[in-house]
């Protein structure tokens, strides 16, 4: 009898420990499009394999919908266990307020400083020498995506850079194809502006404006050229009335539009549609003019909890997200570049390989999301979407407003 009781006690104890090990972590993110969801599933799969459980808290509608929810929950003392946020300046205040878990020990154990490439990404997560977030991928916005089908219909060759693309536009229009697909949301027009700025204005101008917030550079004649190119580009998108970026990408996939200026995450959509880089579509980093990559990207933060079990699982997830296998699996699905240079990405397609080569050569720029505050970014979004859609606004007018915003940027 006593033996039975002890056995029982042991088994209950055992089952208790297994229960304690299996921690549910609630993870909030706004990755809900086809390619994005497939990528998140890789995280979830890997985390579930450790015996814990990934509780998915997806909220569609980009950061604007998700952010108030994330911040409210953190402020209200009932935070989720992990959450996507753009690193850099967006989460600064939450870190300063001591609401985020310090991941320094995980980072040191994993040697993050040695493996993360470019190391700037880790700097974006670091505050006062402590690490607060896990960068999971690199996204660069300055790509031009071109539809082979559209160019076949128009009977011309696929352009190899932005200037050729602009030249080819009238032919596309004749064939009844919209030259440039553009989603109506403001951030997409601002993204296109950044891309044209790198291509037409060059990297020096880009760095001077974004990093130094140099208002004189923003008012310079080179910048006027950028605005002129942008003003010309807006005429190419007439007839593209879609809202979301992936609807615009879909116009390119189906050959209804010639091209789209968009980030490399568009690649995930091509992949879901079974398109092959090089045969069905072409991608041109830096619009094919200046082959560079701006190192934007996503990161995960881990709000502080008062339960040590959860904290342990949070750190486990943090280490997992940056591990080699997970990085490869995740980024292949997401269409983004891994944040570590020491992984084997032979499975990558042409576009990703282009990106990896540029990354290896060190041709990297900071991204607007990291360089500007969300506030400045919002002002630029507003300006660009207005300028793009209202042809009555002149180049001079737009540029002077731009200079004003850069002047006030902090």
């Amino acid at each position: 009898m006593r033996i039975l009781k002890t056995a029982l006690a042991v088994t209950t104890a055992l089952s208790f420990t297994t229960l304690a090990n299996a921690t549910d972590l609630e993870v909030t993110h706004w990755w809900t499009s086809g390619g994005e969801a497939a990528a998140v599933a890789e995280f979830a799969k890997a985390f579930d394999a450790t015996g814990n459980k990934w509780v998915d808290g997806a909220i569609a509608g980009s950061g604007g919908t998700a952010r108030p929810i994330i911040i409210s929950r953190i402020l209200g003392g009932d935070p989720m266990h992990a959450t996507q946020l753009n690193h850099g300046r967006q989460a600064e205040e939450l870190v300063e307020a001591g609401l985020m878990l310090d991941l320094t020990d995980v980072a040191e154990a994993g040697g993050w400083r040695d493996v993360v490439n470019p190391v700037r990404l880790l700097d974006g997560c670091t505050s006062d020498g402590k690490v607060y977030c896990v960068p999971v991928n690199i996204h660069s916005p300055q790509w031009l995506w071109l539809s082979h089908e559209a160019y076949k219909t128009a009977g011309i060759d696929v352009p190899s850079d932005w200037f050729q693309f602009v030249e080819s536009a009238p032919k596309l229009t004749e064939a009844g194809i919209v030259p440039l697909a553009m989603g109506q949301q403001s951030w997409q027009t601002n993204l296109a502006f950044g891309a044209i700025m790198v291509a037409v204005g060059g990297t020096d101008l880009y760095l001077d404006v974004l990093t130094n917030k140099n208002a004189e550079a923003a008012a310079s004649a080179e910048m006027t050229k950028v605005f002129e190119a942008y003003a010309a580009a807006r005429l190419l998108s007439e007839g593209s009335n879609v809202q979301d970026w992936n609807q615009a990408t879909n116009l390119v996939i189906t050959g209804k539009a010639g091209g789209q200026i968009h980030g490399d995450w568009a690649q995930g959509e091509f992949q879901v549609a079974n398109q092959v880089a090089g045969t069905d579509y072409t991608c041109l980093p830096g619009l094919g003019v200046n082959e560079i990559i701006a190192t934007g990207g996503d990161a995960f933060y881990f709000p502080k909890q008062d339960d040590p079990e959860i904290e342990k699982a949070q750190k486990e997830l943090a280490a997992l997200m940056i591990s080699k296998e997970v990085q490869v699996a995740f980024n292949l699905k997401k269409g983004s570049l891994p944040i570590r240079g020491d992984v084997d990405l032979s499975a990558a397609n042409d576009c990703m390989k282009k990106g990896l080569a540029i990354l290896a050569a060190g041709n990297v720029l900071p991204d607007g999301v990291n360089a500007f505050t969300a506030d400045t970014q919002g002002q630029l979004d507003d300006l660009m979407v207005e300028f793009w859609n209202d042809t009555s606004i002149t180049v001079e007018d737009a540029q002077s407003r731009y200079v004003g915003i850069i002047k006030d940027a902090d």
Partner: protein
Amino acid sequence: MADTTATTFEGPSGPKPKRAFSSTNIIIYGTLFVVCLYYLLPLYVMIMTSLKGMPEIRLGNIFGPPVEMTFEPWVKAWAEACTGINCDGLSRGFSNSIWILVPSVFLSIAIASVNGYALANWKFKGSEVFFTILIFGAFIPYQVMIYPIVILLRESGDGITNVMQFFWEDAPRFRLMGSLWGLVIVHTIFGMPILTLLFRNYFTSVPEDLFKAARVDGARFWGIYFRIMLPMSLPIFVVAMILQVTGIWNDFLFGVIYTKPETYPMTVQLNNIVNSVQGVKEYNVNMAATLLTGLVPLIIYFASGKLFVRGIAAGAVKG
């Protein structure tokens, strides 16, 4: 007494049309017919679209009936549509929505009806001022209140915990933020202005003699409320219920902020289905999801019919 009030509102009171086929009648029915078309058009489009396959939708005729009828979009919207990595459609939110709906509707109506009763029959110094402030509150965009309310809920949750721990040392931490009760309180607060207005107007219209007689008989505040006011207020309670069911069922913002993924209401899934585009916008699934989500309030509207107008009549006529 209740009967006489009811009969006053029962039938139409407008001028009587004379002949069946008079020119006036043709104009009236003609206009109403056109009006009904305008109101029905979107519903028709929604239903037709939800029964079509995507290839047919791409052809472009949104007003045509489906050539090949399919219930696939409905199945997908209910059980297969993806939210992040969970692909079980709206179904996972349905019971959550019910769990949120029932206590929220009950509490908000209970409080608002007592408010209206106090404002109409037991005026005290300052009661009109509080009422004006309440009406002012109806104009504040909800989103502006999110952060202050989050902070208030956190603090009052902690306050309750402290009180509880004062009596029992190991009382668990009580949370308003992130719990069902927090959400119920928020719905009660934001439903209060309009509901109180309706109840106040309704109770003002109850004949004074009735109230006076009860007072002379010695009935007090709650006695009159439960024995006289409640039994004769069915219509206005129906109106309040309809308004609250609609509002709370359709709410996305509070539902997503004050709950967790396991308890997200149906509207969160709807938002995710509608806003997450997987390549092409699947209009048919969106429409089916929309109809499924709207089903509960729609059924209540269709079922309540006459009671709704009667209640509104009773609640809004006298100010």
